[in-house]
């Protein structure tokens, strides 16, 4: 469905648009960054250039379309002012990035408790170098996208840096917007959250294109590339909630890498909403490093037209008495395709692990295709580990019940589909966020092309 299907057929350039010249000019534009960061960039670029593209048959890319992973004809465009409203919820701070650059005017930081830092990575590199160095892209990619993760590290120039000191609780969410503007724009969004001991914070990442995801036949929006990452770190007893809403243009190739580190008695809840892009790969890695750690991993996908959503997850239990709970739900329409590949790893000494993994696919068309690869690797015996995967249509009995109460079939199906999403949204503690996400999903669902 891409503008140039022939491009995929011809031999791929290993670098695409990301030539050494482009990298050199990018380095020149970020020369103010500290030397260690620039060194990391250079090393990452070399790695990116050396690594091959994923190909058919690679186990980490099983069922994924690899022919369409091309990096040609993208550019680093300059930032423009984009009038996109943030998520309509009361918030403690708001940061906006357009084409990798922080928009000063759109950034508001008000009434934050003392010690809380909400700033850009570039500024943190100067003022909070040690913190940044310790947590920024600290976890190696483990889920197959080494090449694209290296691309991200090479080109990421800015992003959000959020630090919550010990014992501080921020009730309202911190909003971060990442916007790609213009045809061919390549963006490298990054959000880094450090929640110190017993702190509590909610961060909402919003990914969008300047032209909102237009549905229907007329336009797919602009062809763009997004290679994003987020690092979440929850120290002892911290409670971190992370929400990502992905609504890139319908012609975007998107990669997003999540790394979550959960320390003793900390709790991280993440919910990713996947709506946009042509082909989107999301890799999520949770490491439960100390007793009492809990990671709740949630995702909702509305896939329609020919969209492909490829979600790969890894829950690593490294210490005894840790818990993880994963629920990924996909609703598929038209010729959409989803892949869920999850793995729970329980290390030999991680006794008393409680791990759960569930993938539910709601099939809403004859041609949609859902693949599930729910995996377990258990090396401790005193554990409770279960996983489940189902793929089916709307329950005909529930449909019939609603129809028997006088509700039209189409309305009944819509209600049941929304009910399917609610199970995930209900896990959110904040009613306001719940409502905002519900609106996003339902709007997308109602607009979605039906063929």
């Amino acid at each position: 469905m891409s503008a140039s299907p022939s491009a995929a057929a011809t031999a791929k350039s290993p670098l695409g648009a990301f030539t050494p010249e482009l990298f050199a000019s990018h380095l020149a534009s970020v020369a103010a960054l500290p030397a260690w960061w620039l060194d990391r960039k250079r090393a990452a670029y070399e790695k990116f250039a050396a690594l091959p593209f994923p190909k058919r048959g690679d186990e980490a890319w099983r069922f994924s379309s690899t022919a369409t992973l091309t990096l040609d004809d993208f550019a680093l465009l300059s930032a423009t002012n984009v009038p996109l409203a943030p998520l309509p919820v009361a918030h403690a701070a708001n940061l906006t990035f357009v084409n990798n650059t922080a928009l000063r005017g759109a950034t508001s930081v008000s009434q934050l408790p003392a010690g809380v830092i909400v700033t850009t990575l570039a500024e943190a590199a100067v003022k909070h170098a040690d913190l940044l160095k310790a947590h920024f892209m600290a976890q190696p990619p483990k889920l197959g996208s080494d090449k694209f993760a290296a691309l991200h590290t090479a080109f990421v120039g800015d992003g959000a840096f959020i630090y919550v000191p010990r014992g501080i609780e921020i009730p309202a969410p911190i909003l971060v917007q990442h916007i790609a503007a213009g045809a061919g724009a390549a963006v490298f969004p990054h959000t880094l959250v450090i929640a110190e001991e017993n702190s509590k914070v909610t961060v909402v990442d919003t990914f969008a294109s300047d032209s909102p995801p237009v549905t229907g036949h007329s336009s797919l929006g602009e062809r763009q590339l997004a290679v994003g990452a987020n690092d979440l770190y929850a120290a002892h007893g911290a409670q971190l909630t992370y929400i990502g809403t992905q609504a890139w243009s319908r012609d975007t190739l998107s990669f997003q890498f999540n790394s979550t580190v959960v320390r003793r008695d900390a709790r991280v809840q993440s919910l990713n909403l996947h709506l946009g892009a042509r082909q989107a790969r999301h890799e999520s890695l949770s490491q439960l490093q100390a007793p009492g750690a809990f990671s709740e991993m949630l995702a909702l996908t509305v896939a329609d037209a020919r969209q492909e959503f490829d979600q790969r997850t890894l829950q690593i239990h490294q210490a005894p008495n840790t818990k993880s709970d994963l629920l990924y739900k996909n609703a598929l329409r038209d010729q959409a395709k989803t892949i869920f590949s999850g793995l729970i790893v329980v290390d030999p000494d991680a006794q008393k692990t409680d791990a759960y993994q569930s993938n539910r696919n709601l099939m809403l068309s004859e041609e949609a295709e859902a693949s599930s690869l729910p995996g377990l690797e258990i090396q401790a015996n005193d554990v409770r580990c279960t996983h489940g995967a189902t793929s089916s249509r709307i329950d005909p009995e529930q449909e019939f019940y609603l129809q028997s109460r006088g509700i039209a079939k189409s309305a009944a199906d819509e209600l049941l589909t929304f009910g399917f999403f609610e199970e995930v949204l209900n896990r959110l503690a904040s009613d306001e966020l719940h409502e905002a996400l519900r609106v996003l999903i339902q709007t997308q669902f109602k607009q979605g092309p039906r063929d």
Partner: protein
Amino acid sequence: MNPPTDLDTLATPELDEAALNPTPNPVAGIDQTKGDFSYPVAQYAFDAGTGLTEDTVRYISSVKKEAPWILDFRLKALKTFWDKPMPTHWATKDLEAIDFSKIRYYLSQGQKPKRTWEEVPDDIKKTFERLGIPEQERKFLAGVEAQFDSEAAYSNIKDVVAKQGVIFVNSTEGLREHPEIFRQWFGKVIPTGDNKFSALNSAVFSGGSFIYVPKGVKVAQPLQAYFRINAENFGQFERTLIICDEGAEVVYMEGCTAPKFSTSTLHSAVVELVALKGAKIQYITVQNWANNVFNLVTKRGLAHEEAEIKWIDCNIGSRLTMKYPGVILKGRKARGEVISIALANDGQHQDTGAKMIHAADETTSNIVAKSISVGQGRSTYRGVVHIPKHLKGCKNNTECDALLINSNSRTDTYPAITVRGDRNYVQHEASVSKVNEEMIFYMQQRGLTEGQAMSLAVNGFINDLARQFPMEYSVELKRLIDLEMEGSVG
């Protein structure tokens, strides 16, 4: 297909090919001391030597007096085997420990290695005793006797099935005497290039069972490889093809619960089942190779309209087993089922699972897999469920449960499920648990030892599956689990 009129082949013990074939061993010059066997092999005139070359394949084919097309088939397969890489990008690296140049690919019938009863390790003897294996069978299973004379015990059953028109021969005979029946399906369910080890088997296969059940015939007793007195049956590279014509039914049993003391370290079988319209095939395997054997087996069935194929698969022995019995559900309302039990003890990796390929409307499949990991044993479930384009009314149910006995036991689950369209239903569930401590405590408090309690609990875990085995198998299975669990506690 017409049932053959000449059924004498069933009653005749297989001819000793070696005695009839004067072809000298073309690879006699190679150093045969490289083999894994500890007894002299030079005296066996019909030994293909160690290592695998085109000559080895030609030799096997000439000893078997095969038609030229079979030799071509073997040679092509050999090339495929060489071309294919080891599947270590997803499978265990342990596969790299196989040295193909040190393996003996063919010893003709009657020329099997001989050892004396005294040479059989004591633990094997003890196990036979505990399992209550008949004296005569013990010697055969231990490799003391090349042939196990089952004529007396089982000829009765053979007569009965022969009267029904059932053909039950080995692979050589099947292809030589009944090509009109077997050739059309041979290598069709599992193509040579399916995987590296199916290619290897296609190049060097010998032994195994070729069975044809005519239309509408329901074979009352389970057929067992045991029935035939051919030692090749338990060979390394057996090839089995079972064709069940329209409306026919058959149950086939392979292996037995007693440990098989094998001198060869690689076993790679190919088993193909064809169930024509409305036919039913049940294939029961109990695998208990010695703990030095790589058991890399490809098993698949093709189920036509309203046919039913059921694999009951139990893996207890071997160092590494990789086996994923599959069913291709080709005709409307076909049904496939895999019941799998795996027990992995120290030094063992049971990498088993199932494949269900739905290719027609209203096909249904069911997979129930239970594994037990003891000590440092590792059990893996790997599965594929595939429901491709535009089918409707397909259903799959998969359940896999793993039981971990010791704190360092390991289990993995790697299913892959693809569903297309909104008219199919798939559900997969897996769980991992350990034996309930309260349950063990309760039993101990009633006077059982910890070991007894543990084996009772493990037997309870697989009880619903074990009940699907024929009675004598499930009894032996229970005793075997008792044995395996003895050393696991305390």
